[in-house]
């Protein structure tokens, strides 16, 4: 009996951890999926935007400390706000200089440009910030403990609760923007028919820019979350997180917003559970294996829409 209790506690703990890491993948995946939806291109520099978001979070924290700010909510708010603004500027700039000039060029050109942009951003951060990891002291220590009598105990940190709250709030806001506002309608119109969108008065270039900015803002939040959770950042975290979030977007169905969230969550859960029950060494293999399996049976991803539109 006690054993079953203990197993439940272990399971719940993994669930808590998996959902937390899945939230970051989901947030980054939304950026991939939205940009893909609107210009049919994988923005490979997106992972670096997330990495920059993480750095900005640390730097904002340091500056807040120097300014003598003691309040934790204020510090978190500042990290969130500054991170969003700075990455928004990066997202906008990346689109302007790396993609827009190539919009009408051959298909692989923007892809090559994206990879170049990604390397450039990594090197830029490495040169300006140094190659060593940057630490962040715990900003939001403590949490809730339960099932302690099992000898294992489940812990939900305040930080995790903060992460869930922010993620859920952002996803609600973004879903609402895309589904219900004039901006969201313009984005969907551009996804379906850019020329027709222009004919009804949509400034297509502006909407594409805004889409990059929206994706970048979510990546910034993911960067903040990871920094808070693990307490360290360095210049190459963007690559693996980017690849996983991209996988999440494909798993959920590239182009689908709820798909990106679901894909992120699933990948977070898969790798956490795999590491806990099997082996930490093969968690990435497990993740990609499941991706391949899903795509074999559902080539458009879990929530992707099959291309059977009446045109």
């Amino acid at each position, binding site marked *: 009996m006690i054993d079953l209790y203990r197993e439940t506690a272990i399971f719940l703990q993994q669930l808590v951890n998996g959902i937390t890491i899945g939230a970051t993948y989901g947030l980054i995946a939304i950026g991939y999926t939205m940009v893909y939806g609107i210009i049919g291109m994988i923005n490979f520099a997106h992972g670096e935007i997330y990495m920059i978001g993480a750095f900005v979070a640390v730097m904002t924290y340091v500056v807040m400390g120097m300014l003598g700010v003691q309040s934790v909510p204020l510090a978190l708010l500042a990290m969130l706000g500054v991170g969003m603004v700075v990455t928004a500027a990066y997202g906008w700039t990346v689109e302007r200089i790396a993609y827009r000039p190539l919009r009408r060029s051959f298909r692989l050109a923007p892809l090559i440009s994206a990879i170049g942009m990604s390397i450039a951003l990594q090197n830029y951060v490495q040169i300006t910030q140094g190659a060593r990891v940057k630490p962040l002291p715990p900003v939001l220590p403590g949490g809730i403990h339960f099932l302690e009598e099992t000898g294992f105990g489940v812990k939900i940190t305040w930080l995790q609760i903060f992460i869930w709250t922010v993620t859920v709030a952002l996803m609600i806001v973004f879903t609402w923007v895309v589904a219900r506002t004039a901006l969201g309608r313009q984005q*969907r119109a551009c996804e379906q028919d850019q020329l027709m969108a222009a*004919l009804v008065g949509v400034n*297509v270039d502006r909407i594409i820019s805004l889409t990059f900015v929206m994706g970048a803002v979510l990546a910034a939040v993911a960067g903040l979350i990871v920094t808070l959770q693990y307490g360290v950042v360095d210049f190459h975290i963007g690559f693996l997180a980017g690849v996983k979030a991209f996988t999440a977007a494909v798993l959920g169905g590239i182009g689908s917003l709820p798909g990106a969230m679901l894909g992120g969550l699933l990948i977070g859960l898969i790798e956490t559970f795999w590491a806990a029950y099997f082996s930490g060494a093969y968690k990435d293999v497990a993740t990609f294996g499941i991706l391949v399996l899903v795509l074999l049976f559902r080539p458009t991803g879990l929530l992707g829409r099959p291309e059977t539109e*009446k045109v």
Partner: protein
Amino acid sequence: MAEAMLAVEGVHAGYGPRLALKGVDLHIDRGEIVALIGSNGAGKSTLLMTLCGHPRAKQGRIWFEGRDITRVPTHDLVRCGLVQVPEGRRIFSRMTVLENLQMGALTSDSRHFRPDLDRVFALFPVLAERRAQRGGVLSGGEQQMLAIGRALMSRPRLLLLDEPSLGLAPLVVRKIFATLEEINAGEGVTILLVEQNAYHALKLAFRGYVMVNGVITLTGTGSGLLANPEIRAAYLEGGG
């Protein structure tokens, strides 16, 4: 000469090095319905799209209400009052009927939205019934009504229509043409109508142009062109 609402002067345009328009001249006066007819590949659709800046004119000028719009970006033309219902309707198939109409109203003042929507629903009651359905599931005729409705939501002064009757049953065609007449007479919207269905178009139009191979070869009143034996032979045989 009184200033025309739309004046096209020596316009050349095409795709890549190939020219589809080789010096087009035409004009439309305020309040007119003008028909543009011509066989497949003559360049009719290219002309309408060139008026909207896509492709851009390589040579020549386009004037709208006294303003040179040759280089105005496509997305700014709606705000000038120049609105197109393009070939193939191009409704946003994954958006609802209502959302398509909201897209049409993008550039107009939000105060106009309710009355304009009511007006479109009065013209095409079927759109009101289907407002919550996705555009892609509508029938061809309903999609055409939606495309016209979407254009009307942006309060056009000049409405360009590219083959609105294509693929529709005669009854629906009659309904669409009656609506165009109503929009023109009742609300003073000027209309440029591209049609394969030359008989109907010329009957409705005040004046007409005939396009062959990227140039205008003939022009006259609607009834004059209808009576022209050349036109009858080329575009109307069996069509009446």
